[in-house]
């Protein structure tokens, strides 16, 4: 099936093909076998991630968050079929958009993460490579929920946002600090200032557990 379709991209864990599903343009995301892993081990992980992604995509859609619609799932081939979103990765947008536009878009990212967390969903891999700016609606779509989970815990929310901070620092280092402030401002506008402050200090705490941090927080 997938072999006859157009290969869109080869990610780290999945191949994306562009095809059709019941008349809609669709992306077939197939998690591929990793030859460096034992085959049973490999299969277990691929099935777990595929199921997880399908569940969370549905949960996010129900919560009114922009995600591609889930059309189908096939555990034999560890493939999910998704609505095709035409647009560019937020990573590429930010690299070319200039500081002002980037900060505005990161505020919106903050709103989205806030809505996600308010609905009990942890994304698990919040990077600007996992967000698509739709060219038709101008809205941000979240993708790649394979590492996510359902949780209401502050710890998990903190880890989620910490990942985003790390992604900004490594990929958008020139605007990372300002950009993350905007993310938190958006987050705060959804979750309320109290939750935002709590998660902010959680992020600091998570950072302080790392190997080399400038200051450790005393508890």
């Amino acid at each position, binding site marked *: 099936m997938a072999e006859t379709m157009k290969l869109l991209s*080869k*990610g*780290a*864990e999945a191949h994306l093909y562009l095809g059709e599903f019941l008349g809609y343009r669709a992306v077939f995301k197939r998690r591929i076998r*990793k*030859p*460096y*892993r*034992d085959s*049973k*081990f490999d299969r*277990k*992980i691929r099935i777990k991630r595929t199921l997880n992604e399908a569940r969370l995509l549905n949960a996010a859609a129900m919560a009114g968050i922009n995600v591609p619609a889930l059309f189908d799932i096939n555990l034999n081939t560890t493939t999910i079929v998704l609505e095709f979103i035409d647009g560019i990765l937020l990573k590429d947008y930010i690299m070319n958009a200039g500081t002002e536009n980037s900060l505005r878009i990161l505020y919106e990212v903050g709103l989205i993460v806030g809505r996600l967390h308010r609905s009990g969903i942890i994304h*698990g*891999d*919040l*990077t600007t*490579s996992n967000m698509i700016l739709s060219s038709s609606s101008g809205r941000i779509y979240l993708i790649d929920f394979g*590492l996510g989970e359902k949780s209401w815990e502050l710890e998990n929310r903190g*880890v989620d946002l910490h*990942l985003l901070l*790390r*992604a900004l*620092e*490594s*990929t958008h*280092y*020139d605007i990372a600090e300002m950009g993350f402030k905007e993310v938190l401002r958006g987050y705060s506008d959804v979750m309320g200032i109290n939750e935002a402050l709590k998660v902010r200090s959680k992020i600091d705490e*998570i950072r302080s*557990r*790392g*190997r*080399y*941090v*400038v200051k450790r927080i005393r508890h």
Partner: protein
Amino acid sequence: MEKEIIVLGIESTAHTFGCGIASSKNKILTNVKSVYKPQRGGIHPREASQHHQKVAPFIVKRALDNVGMDIREIDAVAVALGPGLGPCLRVGATVARAISVHYNKPLIPVNHCVAHIEIGRAITGLVDPLVVYVSGGNTIISAFAGGRYRVFGETLDIALGNCLDTFARETGIAPPYIVEGYHVVDYWAERGKEIIDLPYVVKGQDVSYSGLLTAALRLYSEDPKKLPDICLSFREHAYNMIVEVAERALAHTGKRELLLTGGVAASPVLREKLKIMCADHNATFRSVPLEYAGDNGAMIAWTGLLTYLNGVVIPVEKSFIKQRWRLDEVDIPWRKQ
């Protein structure tokens, strides 16, 4: 002809006291080290630092003897000011400051993690690799961007090497940690058959090893007879996690090369997994030979040389050790964007 610049480098961040000499003409001239081996338990910082104090003068002298030089002939002295264990760092820093003051040589600050990357590039010939640096104290995935080595992934708690060693120690299969050239966990894993489910914790581009360690130790306490299977499961989980995040970082950064360094680079199993993963992405894989993958003085000398040639020196009175000096805080002026 340009004048040859000679830099002597000192490493003492953890269990190794090393002294190397690098030259602007011939890269590495010599690499001498002495490794503190605890009789039992892990590295005790005070005991390690006492070891370093004892061996320091002899290691420095042997390095100079190896290249037939007098200490007055070197152009500068470099030292790893961090990151690492405080008491250990202080020994290297004290020796380097003494040389600097007594012989009137410029003192060059070197970040230990940067040094691992630079010696790896110099020896493997890779130009712009994604770096997987795994050792007893570090688990970092890094690549060069915007004038610095950015951190694309790292452990959220303990380092891979620490995880493996602690498991080996707690189960009583180590010391010695190395058996017939293999880490003792790899050695036992070869005798395992079945992979048991353990925590596999990948968070975005980061990993977490503490849950895996605890779960593996619990399994062992429940049924010590299963040691081979537990070792196999433990190391498969541990290695697959780091290979997966390396693969993510490779896809994310679009780099075409991967450099494996740090003490855990000695593991043939980890090397093989990374090699297979790189082949999938048409990336060149190179592993740093063990002499230069583990902590050593040559990497400090070499990185010190690059630093010195770019005009960076530190006044002795400001040469504080930095136990938590992060890799991504250091400017890398010798690399172009």
